[in-house]
């Protein structure tokens, strides 16, 4: 069972090379941006003062600044990962019907449950892990690049960067975020798998239609916005950050940011994993995902494909 599942997961990576290609492309863009950024600031006179200034900063402030840079580097990956997940899940059970290979896949001794499970696991575990590894590599690459630049400018890269970066805190927090995000968004993932299993054409359009139309219909028919709010909260308000949610982080007043800056900053400290895991909405979402996935398995098993 486990060996088959691993083979099925490997098969997903073979078929959907975007799982690697998308984060690698983002990494290349980020690395190039960091290179061209350096070339640009090289033209500015007195830039060496900045290096001196950084050297004189307190260590905790340097850590915050560097962690900020790393979060900045990670953000596009998180965004790209979600877009990738949408397209992957919509394609996962649709492609095998479109290229008519479904009967071949069904001729091998793997159940429909095992096969659909492998697609779900790819979305919630494999894609985040691949993205995570490439984020780490990008961090190292960009920091190495900045180190070389600092050394040329007479600063101490070891002192300014490598000793100061809170690697463990930053990477653990990134991994938690990457794994928590698909869990929180799992109702969408389940819905996309289900659409992928039944739609005859344009799964993206079919998947998006109710997400757009249901809130509209509700507003027109009942004048209420329950569906719209539910979808909005699910999409942008992941309750992972202690006392805040990710939107609040952006919109908090300056006072709040100052208190943050004066404390020893820890990204992990900003997260409340226990609270996230205890949040009933998380489990409600997982239940919805489970129901949609079961429906996808049912459709794959019972639909009569004309042989």
């Amino acid at each position: 069972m486990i060996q088959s599942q691993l083979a099925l997961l490997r098969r997903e990576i073979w078929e959907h090379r975007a799982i690697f290609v998308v984060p690698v492309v983002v990494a290349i863009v980020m690395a190039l941006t960091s290179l061209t950024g350096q070339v640009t600031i090289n033209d500015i006179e007195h830039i060496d003062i900045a290096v001196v200034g950084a050297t004189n900063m307190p260590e905790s402030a340097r850590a915050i600044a560097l962690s900020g840079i790393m979060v900045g580097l990670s953000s596009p990956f998180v965004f790209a990962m979600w877009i990738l997940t949408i397209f992957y899940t919509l394609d996962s059970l649709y492609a095998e019907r479109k290229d008519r290979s479904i009967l071949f896949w069904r001729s091998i001794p793997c159940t429909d449950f095992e096969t659909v499970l492998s697609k779900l696991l790819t979305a919630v575990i494999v894609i985040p892990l691949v993205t995570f590894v490439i984020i780490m590599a990008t961090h190292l690459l960009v920091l190495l690049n900045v180190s070389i630049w600092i050394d040329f400018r007479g600063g101490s890269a070891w002192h300014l960067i490598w000793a100061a970066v809170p690697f463990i805190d930053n990477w653990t927090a990134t991994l938690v975020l990457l794994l928590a995000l698909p869990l929180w968004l799992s109702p969408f993932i389940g819905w996309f798998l289900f659409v992928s299993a039944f739609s005859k054409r344009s799964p993206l359009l079919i998947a998006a239609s109710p997400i757009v139309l249901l809130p509209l219909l509700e507003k027109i028919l009942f004048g209420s916005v329950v569906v719209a709010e539910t979808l909005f909260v699910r999409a942008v308000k992941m309750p992972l950050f202690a006392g805040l949610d990710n939107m609040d982080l952006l919109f908090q007043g300056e006072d709040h940011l100052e208190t943050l800056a004066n404390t020893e900053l820890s990204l992990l400290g900003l997260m409340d994993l226990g609270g996230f895991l205890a949040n009933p909405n998380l489990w409600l979402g997982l239940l919805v995902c489970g129901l949609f996935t079961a429906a996808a398995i049912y459709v794959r098993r019972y639909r009569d494909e004309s042989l």
Partner: protein
Amino acid sequence: MTSLVSARNVSKSFGNFLAVDDVSFEIEKGRIMGLIGPNGAGKTTLLKAVLGLTDCQGSLSVLGLDPFRQRKELMQNICFIADVAVLPRWIRVSQLLDFLQSVHPKFSRARAEELLQKTDINAKSKVRELSKGMVTQLHLSIITAIDAKLLVLDEPTIGLDIIFRKEFYGNLLNDYFDEERTIIITTHQVEEIENLLTDVMFINHGKVVLDSQMDDIPEKYVELLASTDNAAKAQTFNPIYEKDVFGKKVLTFEGIDRDQLAGLGELRTPDIADLFVAKVKGEAA
């Protein structure tokens, strides 16, 4: 001997349309059964039921299993090639072998590689880079390397040229078939497989209209080529089918002693294609 496939009163309907209508048959181990029928006769639906891809009414047992409910166990011992069960185009030959090695307990990679050595197929190629003939060769090679008890072939050679078709059936007999293995095959090119078959079953409008061992055909069926006068006499023996050929009559009889027809014209055993037409058209008449 226990049957490998046993069907009793199997039916399958889609809405009001009865695709398979109360069919019963047995297939024993070590046989090659040809399932012959016109388009829409229910062959494919019947094969799908045997493969556990569709549910049906009645009692159907394949290798002692309920194919629809025990599909995973069944698939360890059954292979199938259907014209539409195509290999995924994105996969590399080597990946296909890796995958099957991991998921199929009865797959022998060494055997598959040995068979592929005899072809021009490169392990690094993707399926989309291979010609249709090569894809079928690849499919047959991996299936031959699976130690399965039953192989189901649904129009396996459709769209292939004559050389690939001959080679396909040659390989099927030489590399795959032995007395432990059983094959069910459907095709429109009946002439090409006639000599392979040990058993033949005709199906029309969802019903079995003939189910016989090939060896019994000459005893049961006879074709008479007679002049118009003699044909009139022969008609008293109730032919199941008659047609005109070059001013003469060809009459097909079922269960008539050849001695009774002696002297009325030339007697011969009908080939499968003619017999099929006789049974199907004769029924309609």
